[in-house]
């Protein structure tokens, strides 16, 4: 059987020869990287100037920028973890038998799913206190923590939808078979439904993670010391030389590309791998 379709889940997959998940080859990155970083540098080198070449300036700043990028990744991990936990609960709330839970979970999900990420981030930044009183201890609440919280809100809403969609996508016969074997609803969910949902949820979940990682630079707007903020500061301290813009921002683009592209490839590979297991 082969279907004429553009839905990845409908595509025929060969279980014996799954495509290697990294269709990525070094030369994929090289042209882009070369153009972004060396291009302006070379152009600059050809013009006579006693100032330091853009490339060596970039190399000087690279360790700091990499630290900033690592901070972006930390923010993405934490926001993803927080969003996944709360979103998972919210998603299960959406399939609750209790109408109150179901409707309120639906509302919260839809509200945050249809809100711009930046606005949510601003809300978290300016509505959360800078420190909190927990059991008499003053716990500081720094900007980056607020950013994590702010970014976890849209993640939560999207995870909630992923969970609901995955549960709904299972044939009703699975529920009926479990019910007729006298499983409780909780057992049915935990033993029968959710284990089958995991592989359906994984590709969209990873896709979401990729989007979140790229959205972490939004935190620069609210003053978190992540890679974009640091780049801006580095450029400023170099006197705002215009020929530095392309190498610096090109470098950041490259970092995100190197990190996110394999995730995208892996997602495609997972989708193909699971397409033939029903």
């Amino acid at each position, binding site marked *: 059987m082969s279907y004429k379709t553009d839905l990845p889940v409908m595509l025929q997959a060969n279980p014996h020869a799954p495509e290697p998940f990294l269709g990525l080859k070094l030369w994929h990155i090289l042209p882009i990287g070369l153009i972004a970083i060396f291009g302006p540098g070379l152009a600059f080198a050809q013009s006579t100037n006693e100032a330091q070449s853009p490339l060596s300036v970039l190399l000087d700043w690279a360790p700091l920028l990499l630290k900033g990028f690592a901070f972006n990744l930390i923010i993405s991990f934490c926001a993803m973890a927080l969003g996944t936990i709360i979103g998972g609960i919210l998603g299960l709330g959406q399939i609750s038998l209790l109408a109150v839970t179901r409707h309120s979970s639906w509302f919260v999900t839809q509200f945050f799913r249809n809100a711009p990420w930046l606005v949510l981030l601003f809300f978290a930044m300016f509505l959360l206190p800078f420190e909190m009183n927990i059991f008499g201890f003053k716990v500081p609440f720094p900007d980056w923590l607020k950013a994590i919280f702010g970014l976890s809100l849209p993640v939560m809403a999207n995870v909630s939808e992923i969970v609901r969609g995955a549960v709904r996508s299972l*044939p009703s*016969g699975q529920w*009926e078979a479990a019910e*007729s074997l006298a499983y409780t609803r909780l*057992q049915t969910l935990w033993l*029968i439904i959710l284990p089958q949902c995991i592989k359906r949820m994984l590709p969209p979940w990873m896709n979401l993670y990729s989007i979140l990682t790229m959205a972490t630079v939004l935190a620069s707007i609210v003053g978190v010391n992540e890679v974009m903020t640091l780049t801006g500061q580095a450029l400023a301290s170099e006197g705002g030389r215009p020929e530095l813009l392309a190498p610096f921002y090109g470098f950041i683009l490259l970092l995100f590309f190197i990190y996110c592209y394999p995730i995208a490839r892996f997602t495609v590979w997972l989708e193909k791998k699971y397409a033939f297991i029903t």
Partner: protein
Amino acid sequence: MSWTPAEPMVSIKNVHKSFGDLHVLKGISLDVMKGDVICIIGPSGSGKSTLIRCVNALNDIQKGSIKVEGIEVNDPKLDKLQLRRKVGMVFQQYNLFPHRTALQNVMMAPVRVLKQDKSIAEETARALIKKVRLEGKEDAYPGELSGGQQQRVAIARSLAMQPDVILFDEVTAALDPETVGEVLETIKDLAEDGMTCILVTHEMGFAREVADHIYFTDRGIIVEHGPPETFFQNAKDSRTKEFLSQIL
């Protein structure tokens, strides 16, 4: 409520069921004694499947009474789990759990629901898989089995809960013709062991062979019923005759 084997194990009285405006069951009554094998036949859409799904409360009923060993199914306070431990069910689409092996499919419910010891449940499960003639397929996933094999695993899974009655909902309708026989054979074994069975089926030859009693339903009512010999040879109602002439 106490129930004795002298009373019907499943007693269906004047059951009405609607899906919205669609009146599917219009007053059905039938009794099943312990050890009986009854077949419900009839044209598609006559409410056969709906009827047996009401017996284990997968569907609720609007009017009438269904009692399984004295447990009233049409009761808002019904303990569905208690009912479903007594009533097994096998589906047209098998509905095995695809992420678990055949053995796990069979032993999961006894371990999780009946809280049986794992080693005992596994022993029972292996014996049941052998009984449905699938020895050697214990570790196969449902996706690796043929339709007939999956359906036999589903029968074993249902048996593992030690039900008092099993409902079979057109269990051969989705199968390839060459695997229908092996599933029917398995059901026949059960019937001979004295298991109480309620079957919805289109397999007339099979119904004739194993059923103690045959019910013919059409448009939500029981048109005619009787033991297979009289039912198949001396059908009285014109609708029954027409149906049988089309099928046989």
